[in-house]
């Protein structure tokens, strides 16, 4: 390992600019002649739009235009789409309702944009937006997914009777039910996976610009995947042909999934820029983020796990209602299906699994992928079931897990996935050791002496990352391939630019990708630049989500580097006057095997461009190669997290006193960055478990619509984490990487709730386990115990 190669703890190259305020975000972009957009949003969850009177607003100072859904319809722009087809059990296609960028006949959630005011200044746009009179006929609304399909519920879209988008299933129902019938023990749980607001630190933003001279559009946008944004806006919205639309994602300050999707505001900014003939800029305010960024989770599940007499799991079945909100967001359909039910085998050898998922419309903000996307929901189901079962069967939770672990690889689960490598015992063993599991009983007694309740909870999670083999996802309904691209451009002086289809919005690609190049070519890490996020500069790429940039994005770079090395060897063979097959490339030098004759990297790069030493007809000058890498399998990061809590029974306040995380991410490129990802992921998971909850009232108003009432985790909510790894190399990609971006958020909620329920001796606690919820559960438990006496 070199000092800056794979496995080295290299400080992040990008941090100097980020922490000194020199990042360049979409909001920092200002275009000559730019105007500002303010959206008029529906204050009602469900309302027919009977008319919009923009006369007064249009006369306000500085107003350039007021545009409505009718104007959008007049320009014949297409609807926003969901790009993953799911079929119901009966074979029918999912019921995708029209989603115009500006509502046309009715508004379907609070925050649904119905008009936009374009003005010289933002203040003028806001003033005028208040004067737009929308004549609403308020309709009954439904916000609770469990109520959406009931007979009396408000009907949101004509195409979807009973608000049902699809009724999907995975696994063998007959075999699973049979396994339950002959089971010795069945554990049952009702689970609500609470709805979350992503809250990236940088709010979404968009600047649209139309060049009437060339007919070209440019969109600066806070996106995790600029090429996919361009494809959808060109091919489905019909804004412009793909080659006349440039999407630029400059520095992006956090995404967590919420910036994957194509949103109304960016479409409107582009469209309006042509309408008004000037650039149009929009930057979300935090309240707008709450009302328009795709939310996460929101599942209602009944799940059961069946055991034989030896404590072996013989079956798992689950029924889930997934709330997809008012419209189907870009990848929403895949989250509660192929990213959820496929993970219900967890780390365990479960012969029979059956899962049914009903996806429903409600009058709420659309729901889509959020850090983990389906996999946290699956892990919560599996790890809660195992933990509760252990308590019911009086088997130590660690022992019950061990008894059911998968030991042989590859392992085909009954729910599509084929796990390729792992050692679940190793991560469990190491985590138990680091957490001093054996000493817990003593710590519990000590806490009891202080009047505190202490609990410990495990979460042995697995995820499917490195998304994903294109053919496989195509057969499951994906509208796109999920390969990744890279171009390695060697300059005449030997420095290198890597153009990657991945997109960094906090992950540190500028460092980790450069580490790969530094190691492979033996050049200084500072001689490598990573270029991403501009469709005019970078070849088509699929972007960053699903912990895919290391496993898929870097693999594409490896393939391009292979080609660069092969070409460079040809150049070197001319310089060294030796046969190409005799050239060995190592430590930045090309050597004739078995001799001391060598030529350094820089000379080869220069000669590739001067082309003086070889015939330009026999060997093309230049040194630049492109590769598209399609993975052969998902990757399967897995590990064991142990959370230990101490609860004050008088206040219900939970303090996380210890956290141990032992993860198997395969090969680590930069252990420091991996550790940071684990810290951030756990903290987000703790947020879900203890603090965060997007609550809608029965009328569909988001009552937790700001940081005043939606509680984000802060530094003091988490302990100092004990983080360690075990390593089994991922066999399906050249670097052996599995991915680490989502693991913490996937593992954490179950660990926290398992610890809390252990402490209070009751399973009846929903997320977020606020002090009030915990206190109430303790009181209820006390009352039940008293009644029993």
């Amino acid at each position, binding site marked *: 390992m070199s000092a800056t190669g794979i496995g080295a703890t290299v400080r992040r190259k990008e941090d100097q600019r980020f922490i000194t305020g020199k990042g360049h975000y979409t909001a920092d972009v200002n275009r000559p002649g730019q105007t500002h957009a303010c959206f008029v949003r529906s204050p009602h969850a469900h309302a027919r739009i009977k008319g919009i009177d923009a006369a007064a607003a249009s006369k306000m100072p500085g107003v350039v235009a007021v545009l409505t859904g009718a104007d959008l319809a007049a320009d014949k722009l297409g609807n926003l789409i969901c790009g993953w087809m799911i079929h119901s059990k009966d074979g029918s296609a999912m019921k995708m309702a029209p989603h115009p960028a500006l509502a046309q006949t009715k508004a379907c959630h609070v925050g649904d944009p119905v008009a936009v005011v374009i003005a010289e200044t933002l*203040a003028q746009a806001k*003033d005028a937006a*208040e004067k737009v009179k929308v004549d609403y006929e308020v309709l009954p609304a439904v916000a609770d997914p469990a109520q959406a399909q009931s007979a009396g519920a408000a009907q949101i879209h004509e195409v979807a009777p009973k608000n049902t988008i699809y009724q999907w299933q995975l696994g063998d129902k007959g075999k699973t039910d049979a396994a339950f019938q002959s089971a010795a023990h069945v554990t049952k749980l009702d689970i609500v996976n609470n709805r979350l607001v992503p809250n990236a630190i940088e709010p979404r933003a968009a600047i649209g610009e139309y060049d009437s001279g060339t007919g070209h559009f440019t969109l600066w946008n806070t996106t995790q995947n600029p090429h996919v944004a361009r494809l959808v806006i060109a091919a489905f919205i019909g804004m412009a042909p793909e080659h006349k639309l440039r999407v630029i994602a400059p520095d992006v300050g956090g995404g967590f999934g919420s910036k994957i999707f194509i949103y109304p505001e960016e479409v409107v900014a582009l469209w309006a820029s042509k309408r008004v003939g000037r650039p149009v800029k929009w930057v979300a*305010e935090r*309240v707008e983020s709450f009302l328009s960024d795709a939310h996460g989770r929101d599942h209602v599940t009944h799940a059961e796990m069946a055991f034989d007499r030896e404590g072996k799991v013989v079956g798992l079945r689950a029924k889930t209602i997934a709330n997809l909100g008012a419209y189907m967001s870009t990848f929403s359909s895949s989250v509660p299906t192929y990213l959820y039910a496929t993970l219900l085998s967890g780390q365990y050898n479960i012969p029979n699994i059956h899962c049914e998922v009903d996806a429903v419309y409600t009058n709420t903000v659309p729901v889509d992928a959020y850090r983990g996307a389906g996999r946290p929901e699956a892990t919560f189901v599996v790890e809660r079931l195992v933990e509760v079962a252990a308590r019911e069967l009086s088997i130590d939770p660690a022992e019950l897990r061990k008894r059911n672990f998968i030991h042989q690889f590859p392992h085909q689960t009954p729910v599509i996935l084929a796990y390729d490598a792992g050692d679940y015992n190793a991560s469990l063993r190491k985590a138990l050791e680091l957490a001093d599991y054996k000493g817990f009983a003593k710590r519990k007694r000590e806490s009891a002496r202080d009047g505190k309740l202490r609990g410990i909870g495990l979460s042995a999670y697995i995820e499917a990352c490195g998304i994903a083999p294109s053919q496989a996802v195509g057969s499951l309904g994906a509208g796109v391939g999920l390969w990744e691209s890279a171009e390695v451009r060697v300059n005449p002086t030997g420095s290198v630019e890597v153009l990657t289809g991945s997109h960094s919005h906090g992950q540190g690609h500028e460092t980790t990708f450069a580490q790969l190049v530094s190691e492979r070519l033996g050049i200084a890490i500072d001689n490598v630049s990573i270029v991403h996020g501009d469709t005019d500069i970078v070849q088509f790429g699929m972007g960053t989500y699903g912990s895919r940039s290391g496993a898929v994005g870097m693999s594409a770079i490896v393939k391009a580097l292979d080609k660069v090395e092969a070409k460079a060897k040809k150049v070197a063979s001319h310089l060294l006057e030796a046969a190409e097959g005799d050239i060995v490339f190592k430590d930045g030098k090309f050597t004739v095997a078995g001799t001391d004759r060598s030529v350094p990297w820089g000379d080869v790069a220069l000669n590739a461009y001067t082309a003086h030493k070889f015939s330009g007809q026999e060997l093309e000058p230049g040194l630049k190669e492109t590769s598209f890498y399609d993975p052969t399998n998902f990757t399967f990061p897995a590990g064991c997290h142990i959370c230990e809590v101490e609860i004050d029974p008088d206040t219900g306040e939970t303090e996380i006193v210890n956290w141990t995380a032992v993860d198997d991410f395969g090969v680590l490129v930069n252990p420091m960055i991996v550790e940071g990802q684990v810290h951030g992921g756990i903290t987000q998971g703790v947020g879900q478990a203890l603090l965060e909850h997007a609550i809608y009232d029965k009328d569909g108003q988001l009552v937790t619509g700001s940081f*005043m009432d939606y509680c984000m985790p802060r530094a003091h909510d988490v302990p100092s984490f004990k983080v360690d790894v075990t390593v089994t190399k991922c066999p399906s990609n050249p670097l052996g990487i599995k991915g680490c971006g989502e693991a913490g958020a996937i593992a954490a909620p179950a660990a926290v709730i398992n610890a809390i329920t252990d402490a209070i001796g009751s399973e009846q606690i929903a997320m977020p386990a606020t002090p009030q919820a915990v206190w109430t559960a303790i009181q209820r438990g006390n009352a039940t115990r008293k009644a029993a006496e």
Partner: protein
Amino acid sequence: MYAFTLHRPSSVRQAANLLAKSEDAKLLAGGQTLIPTMKQRLASPASLIDLSLIEGLSGIELRGRSIVIGAMTRHAEVADSPIVQENLPALTELAGEIGDPHVRNMGTIGGSRSGSAPPS
């Protein structure tokens, strides 16, 4: 935020006069609640009377068995005060945990008391 007129009186008497004669005026202490509310267009006072230039409204002193804390005393000053620390350590702890350093350096104990919002 809507347009408003900002007054910066230098005495309590001036401030009281301004308050009496302006319609829909609000007193501005640390602005930790009022300014965000105005930014969200949820409040639109015609004028603000900024109290920060008035001498004598802030400070902490021990008078017999009482600690007298001026209404314009910032949370950070309360948290750092040896008088408070010695005589009312619970208040030191409380003031030191309000918001973040930004909030504590601007927000005032008087403003928090007048606002009476749980998070203030």
